[in-house]
């Protein structure tokens, strides 16, 4: 993908800087409000990634890479999966079946709440990492 950081899209740059915090905020909302309305880890991850993709498109990949390095992305996508599977491992250690969140707290409903929170977070982290990696991968070929 061709990116034109040096061209003077001053308006776009300023607007982008204004918009990105709101996009990130919306991502957080979707991540943690998924219990009550539409949304969840996957959608939140995509929204988070879109903020960085927007940054990359407007400021150029070099700038974005300074904010979020490929090494961090690698760690993110692995950690998300580990968090999800690790939640399963913890439920097993606490005496339940794989991914049986009931055992995570004294009260099954609380356990479910914590379990869903953890796995959605895992999904969100992995998806954010992978989606930005996909963008880096396709954008950094030239």
């Amino acid at each position, binding site marked *: 993908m061709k990116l034109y950081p040096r061209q003077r899209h001053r308006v776009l740059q300023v607007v982008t800087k204004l918009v990105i915090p709101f996009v990130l905020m919306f991502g957080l909302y979707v991540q943690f409000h998924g219990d*009550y*309305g*539409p949304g969840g880890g*996957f959608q939140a991850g995509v929204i988070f990634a879109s903020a960085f993709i927007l940054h990359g498109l407007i400021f150029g990949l070099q700038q974005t890479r300074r904010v979020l390095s490929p090494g961090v992305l690698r760690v993110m996508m692995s950690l998300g999966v580990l968090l999800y599977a690790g939640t399963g491992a913890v439920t097993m250690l606490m005496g339940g079946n794989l991914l049986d969140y009931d055992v995570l707290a004294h009260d099954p409903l609380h356990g479910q709440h914590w379990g869903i929170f953890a796995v959605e977070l895992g999904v969100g982290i992995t998806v954010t990492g992978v989606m930005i990696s*996909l963008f880096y*991968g*396709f954008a950094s*070929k030239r």
Partner: protein
Amino acid sequence: MTQAIGLYSYWIVILLMMAGLYIMIARYNLVKKIIGLGLFQTSIFYLYITMGKVDGGTAPILVEDATLLYSNPVPHVLILTAIVVGVATSAVALALIVRIYESFDTIEEDEIKAIEAQEPDS
């Protein structure tokens, strides 16, 4: 009204699916094949969601109203998974296409076949 499109909506969706499948197998351009895959899969998602719709139902988000009818959430869950799988597949496919273009200098299937036919196996 409902009876009139009782099956009609399935049929249109099937036609759309077949359009996608046709692009996948009949077009030589690799990118076009993957576009066809996207069309095919999106139409399958549509088919699933059609199955879960209940007349007069609302989105499956619980509210304090016992009389409310909800649409079936199961197809929604399945399709959420399937959408993710679909985009993952297209991402891998597109990455492969980029590499194929780098090494063959074309993304037309028949031209690639012609180039490959000239190379011995080992």
